[in-house]
């Protein structure tokens, strides 16, 4: 490396020698012209006569931060206590905030404390949708067996834990002391929880549109078997011994070698055929597998994928890709949509399993005939009353378009579900009254044995009465139930919740038959 005398001098901080003579005066002006961005050493090497690329491209170095100078004072920060609205314990903490900020502003991170929506269910809902114990289980595999263990108590407990630990499944699993004979895994807990949530959403009337419901249900999907398999794979992957690892590696190399041999063989055969017959061999191509048929486990395949040269991955297009295209929905142009709207055309996706026979043809119908009929059951007068209160009719529409008929259908479903809930509510309320009375009598001590049985009979009698007659006697005690029935009729408010069987005044004459 050539080092000039001047450099040595400057490195050793020696005074500049006047004896340097001829080089010095030439160098001095060049230093002044040194363009920015070139180190002095470099410049002295390349010299001014050589225009360099580096000199043309200005270096983009990070700007030196401009610290506050005397003109603008540094921002003031102050330590203040703040209220985290997401906290419920009212703990006061302090943080540094800009003094210019309004101390009353909402704590900006409070909004990230989101709560999982909690789902609850009534006894009736549990019996109808969630009870797996009584279901006639087909023991096709162990899955159903596990489901059988879930009782309402255990499910309640699971939901309580979920709420308490905010969906932290590992904590829930740790804290849950479920009976050991049930043998619940973490996956079983998740499976139960998510399936219950899905069933609830699916079976309850939904206030929004169908799409949001489907999205919500999809967000609560949980595939028990898949999850269990995933964990099994992970465990087996983790628990490989070093011998196994080595063997796997050896096997992999062996497979690659075989593949290459095969490929070469195929290539040579093709060449030969072409030279001999001037055509393709017509022999079946060798499928370039990636090891699966040779018994290599999927996880090792995943590992090896990275090492695979990209050139070898030329897989032939699978037939499944071509076969699936007819099921893809044809994109509708806006023009054809406008055409359809103009002619009142509705296109539906054809399902391939619909038989194209004459018998399957649905005859022409009036849209209004698709309005669901009210079933003539005990619920009917209540439904009619409920609709009348809302200023609607359950069987007629002003404009029976497709959407409106669908809307009415949803409304009817919601009303039925609501009345159903109400029936159960009334029943439970009544049961509570009975239980309270019994408790009061027992605590009263003065009750004789004989009287107690009479009261119980009375209670049972009345209990039957509520079941058959619906909602009468709500809020009445055992003793005063008889009088309460007659009283109830006189003051009935007009809210939806007060629908009861005594009101049959809504006329059914208005209903029309449609053909």
């Amino acid at each position: 490396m050539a080092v000039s005398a001047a450099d040595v001098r400057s490195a050793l901080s020696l005074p500049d020698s006047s004896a340097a003579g001829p080089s010095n005066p030439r160098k001095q002006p060049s230093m002044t012209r040194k363009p920015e961005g070139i180190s002095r050493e470099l410049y002295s090497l390349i010299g001014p006569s050589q225009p360099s690329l580096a000199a043309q491209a200005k270096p983009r170095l990070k700007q030196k931060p401009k610290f506050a100078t005397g003109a603008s004072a540094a921002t003031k920060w102050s330590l203040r206590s703040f209220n985290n609205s997401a906290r419920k314990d009212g703990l006061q903490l302090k943080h540094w905030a800009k003094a210019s900020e309004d101390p009353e502003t909402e704590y900006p991170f409070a909004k990230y404390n989101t709560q999982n929506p909690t789902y609850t269910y009534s006894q009736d809902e549990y019996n109808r949708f969630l009870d797996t114990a009584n279901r006639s289980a087909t023991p096709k595999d162990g899955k159903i067996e596990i489901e059988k263990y879930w009782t309402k108590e255990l499910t309640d407990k699971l939901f309580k834990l979920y709420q308490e630990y905010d969906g932290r499944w590992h904590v829930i699993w740790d804290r849950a002391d479920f009976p050991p004979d049930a043998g619940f895994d973490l996956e079983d807990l998740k499976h139960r929880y998510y399936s219950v949530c899905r069933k609830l959403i699916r079976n309850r009337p939904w206030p929004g549109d169908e799409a949001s419901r489907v999205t919500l249900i999809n967000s609560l999907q949980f595939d028990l078997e898949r999850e269990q398999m995933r964990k099994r794979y992970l465990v087996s992957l983790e628990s490989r011994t070093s011998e196994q690892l080595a063997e796997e590696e050896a096997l992999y190399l062996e497979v690659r070698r075989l593949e290459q041999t095969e490929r070469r063989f195929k290539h040579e055969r093709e060449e030969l055929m072409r030279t001999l017959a001037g055509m393709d061999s017509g022999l079946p191509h060798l499928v370039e597998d990636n090891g699966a048929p040779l018994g290599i486990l999927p996880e090792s395949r995943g590992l090896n994928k990275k090492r695979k040269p990209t050139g070898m991955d030329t897989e032939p297009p699978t037939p499944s890709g071509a076969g699936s295209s007819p099921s893809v929905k044809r994109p509708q142009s806006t023009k054809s949509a406008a055409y359809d709207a103009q002619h009142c055309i509705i296109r539906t996706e054809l399902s391939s399993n619909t038989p194209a026979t004459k018998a399957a043809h649905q005859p022409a119908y009036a849209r209004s005939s698709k309005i669901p009929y009210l079933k003539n059951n005990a619920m009917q007068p209540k439904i009619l009353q409920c609709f009348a209160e809302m200023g609607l009719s359950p069987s007629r529409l002003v404009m029976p378009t497709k959407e409106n008929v669908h809307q009415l259908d949803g409304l009817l479903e919601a009303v039925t579900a609501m009345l159903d809930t109400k029936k159960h509510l009334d029943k439970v309320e009544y049961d509570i009254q009975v239980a309270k009375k019994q408790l009061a009598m027992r605590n009263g001590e003065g009750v004789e044995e004989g009287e107690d049985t009479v009261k119980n009979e009375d209670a049972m009698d009345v209990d039957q009465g509520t079941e058959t007659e619906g909602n009468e006697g709500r809020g009445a005690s055992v003793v005063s139930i008889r009088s309460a029935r007659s009283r109830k009729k006189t003051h009935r408010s007009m809210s939806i919740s007060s629908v009861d069987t005594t009101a049959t005044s809504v006329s059914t004459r208005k209903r029309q038959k449609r053909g």
Partner: protein
Amino acid sequence: MSANDRVRVRGLSICRPIIYGNTAVALTQKERDGLASPDHTHRWTVAVRSAASVPGSGQVGGADDLSYFIKRVTFKLHDTYPNPTRNIDKPPFEVTETGWGEFEIIVRITFIPEAGEKTMTLLHHLKLHPWTLSGEPEIPPLDVALKAGPVHSWQYDEIVFNDPFQNFLNLLTSHPPTPIPRQKRHRVPFHTANPASFEESKGKGEGDVPPEFWVGMISEEAERLDEARKKVIGEQERMRNALIEKEQEYERLKKALTE
């Protein structure tokens, strides 16, 4: 006719908006005297028409000629009328009569042979007397009835053809229905499924323009239904929470009882 014409177009349904119903006007004493049966109090017209109205025509609906897909409309009147089954083979598909009482009219629509569809039966309650808020029929005195103007009772509906034959579909698409207006130009026809429209649907006496169906009625009804559904679901939500609470309370009580 090519063989292709008799092929059903699968996965497609096409509908035509129609209205059916009647208008009725009370007769003056002088008019009644001129009738064959002077006890008749009203002149009414029952009709099946397209939903859109012709502005200034003075009638509800009827902008399109429906004979491109309807071959015949049969109105089955009350048996006391002479020749009670009236077959109408040409547009306008309507029957005008006089009478004194309301009754159910069976409206039977026969489609053109190309449709390959059976007849469709609709039912209409002939309305002679003005609508009332209570729903109970009320017969106003003659001068009041005359002043109130014609009584309208119309039902909107859509006739839906599923998987129509190709030639029938071509026929339908060559007659796109006149859409009902996007703006509300006149009052709306009253309907019992929307009692709230009572005041709005009232006529302003004789010479008044008849009511008209318009697009907003569809969305308004959808909103009404949606609102009601949200309300009901909210109510149910509240009840369910109460129920769950009560159930827990009951459990506690039961436990206390068994102790």
